[in-house]
Structures are given as C-alpha cells and as structure tokens.
C-alpha cells in the first residue's frame, strides 16, 4: 500500500494544475446554478411541462460541464 501512496508525491507543477482546474470550475459552477435554478422555476410554474424541462436541463448541464472537464483534463496533461 505504502509504495503506491508514495508515488503520489507532489511537486511545484501540482500547484499549477490545481490553479488551472480551480479557475476552470468557477464559470461552469455559476452557469449550471443558473440553468438548474431556472429549470426549477419552470417546473414549479408549470408542472405538466416538467418532463421536457428536465430533459433540456440535463442537456444544458452536459454542455456546460464539458467546459469544466476541459480544465480537468488539461490539468492532467500538464506534466
């Protein structure tokens, strides 16, 4: 167990990776909050349309989350 844990030591580039992902997660966090909030309002105002609103909400979340994940993948590419 310990040899595996010992491989996960950090160096100066891991600070850069953390900064990259940290900044990448701000925008999508706010964006997804806006999308889901508006979806909840829509579902509360018209419960019959909840199915369609929910589907569109998931689609919007996937688009926005892709941006945060670009930053995540970039943090791993940086060596």
């Amino acid at each position, binding site marked *: 167990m310990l040899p*595996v844990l010992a*491989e996960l030591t950090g160096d100066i580039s891991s600070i850069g990776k953390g900064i990259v992902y940290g900044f990448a997660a701000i925008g999508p966090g706010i964006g997804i909050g806006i999308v889901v909030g508006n979806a909840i309002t829509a579902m509360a105002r018209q419960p019959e349309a909840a199915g369609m609103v929910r589907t569109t909400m*998931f689609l919007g979340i*996937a688009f926005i989350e*892709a941006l945060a*994940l*670009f930053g*995540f993948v970039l943090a*791993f590419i940086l060596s």
Partner: protein
Amino acid sequence: MLFGLDFPPVSHLVEWPGIAGTPVNKVMILTAISAALVFIFFFLAGRKQAMVPKGIQNAGEAVIDFVEDGIVLQTMGPDALRWVPFMTTLFSFIFVTNIWGIVPVAQMPVNARVALPAFLAVLIFFLYNIVGIKSQGLGGYLKSSLFPPGVPKALYILVTPIEFITVFLVRPFSLAVRLFANLLAGHLLLVTFALLTAALFTAEAFYVAAALPFVALVALTGFELLVSVLQAFVFTILAAVYIGGSMHPDH
C-alpha cells in the same frame, strides 16, 4: 490487475500495458464483451415478436421507446425514424461500456481511456458531415453551416470563422472530451476513495475516521451509475442534434 483486486500504479494513467506482454488490454476485453452483450440483448429481445411484450422483449422495447421518444423524435423530427436503430445501438453501447466502472470484478469504465470516445466522436463527425453533404450538396451544406441565414451581411466576417471552428473543430473534440473526462474523473474519484479506505482499514493503528471514506465510496458508486446513464444519453442526444441539424438546416 485483471480482476480489480489490487490498485494499478499511477503511471497506468498514461501507459497502457497489455496482459503479460501481449498487446491485449483489460479495456479491449471489456469493449469486446460490451459489444457482445448489446448484440445478445437486442437479438434475444427481438426473437419472438409477441403483440403484448413480456420479459426481455419488454425491456428491449422500453429502451427503444426511450430512444425514439426522448431523443430522435425530440431533436430530429418524425421523418428521421430510420435513425432510431443507430441511436439505440449508440446509447446502449456507451451505457454498457460506462457501467463496467462500478461492476465489482471489472472496475474499469472503458470510456476512461480516450480511444473509444475519440473513435465515436470521429464517427459522428463523419456522419453529420456526410449527411449534410448528401442532403444539401457540398456547396449548399457549406453555405448553410458557415453562413447561417438571418445574420446581417457585415457580421459574416465575425460569424463565419466562429461557425467554422464550431462545426468542424469544437463539436467532435467536445463530444470526445465530454465523455472521456466525465468517466475518467469518476474513475479517479472511486480509486482515490477506495485506496484511502483500504489504507485506513489495514493500518496498524485503529482510525475512528476509517468509515468516512467508505461512506463516500458508496455514495460515489451510486453517483457513477447516474453519470454513466447521463453521459450515454447526452452523447446520443448531441449526435442526434448534430445529424438532425445537418439534415434540416432551417431550424
């Protein structure tokens, strides 16, 4: 390593060795098993075509209804029903390859390695371009995708490069990276919490907090199930939107 009973070294994130020197990988074996499973499921579901479906035919019809009503009819319109078999296969295959991440012996989501998502994204890229060229001609397709109607003429200097980058570069790249990065992030979280739980449980001293990473591991496994279904759905619905947009460019 093959049966998920110990933890792989960190270098396996970027170096993918085969089993005992052969070029065959655990991911390749799981991909082949996923393809066989999807084929067997739909083959068995379609064998006896009773009017009132029961058993496996019921399950197969449920999947096809979900794809037809929720994906193809919503985004491509009623005249695109011949795309339902392709979308059903795509959705089922991506779902089965994602679900190996939480199955106890395999523990490896196939889409956590970028080869299969990249291949699927390139396939969808070729599909929506070829469908667009076939239905509108090469010049018509380029005109409708790079010069969208309803834009004032002076803005084309700004809009056309953006449209070009969007349609031909960003779409396949984002399709691949969305699927790959979601599954890779989930897999890394599961491995981290499992490693932490195992380390705390097998240490010489008794840690009171050893149960916390285990609870997080259970919660994350359930979350990974949701992510598997969601990413398969999103990939399929985006493929349907892109192909539908190539077929009918007006809306």
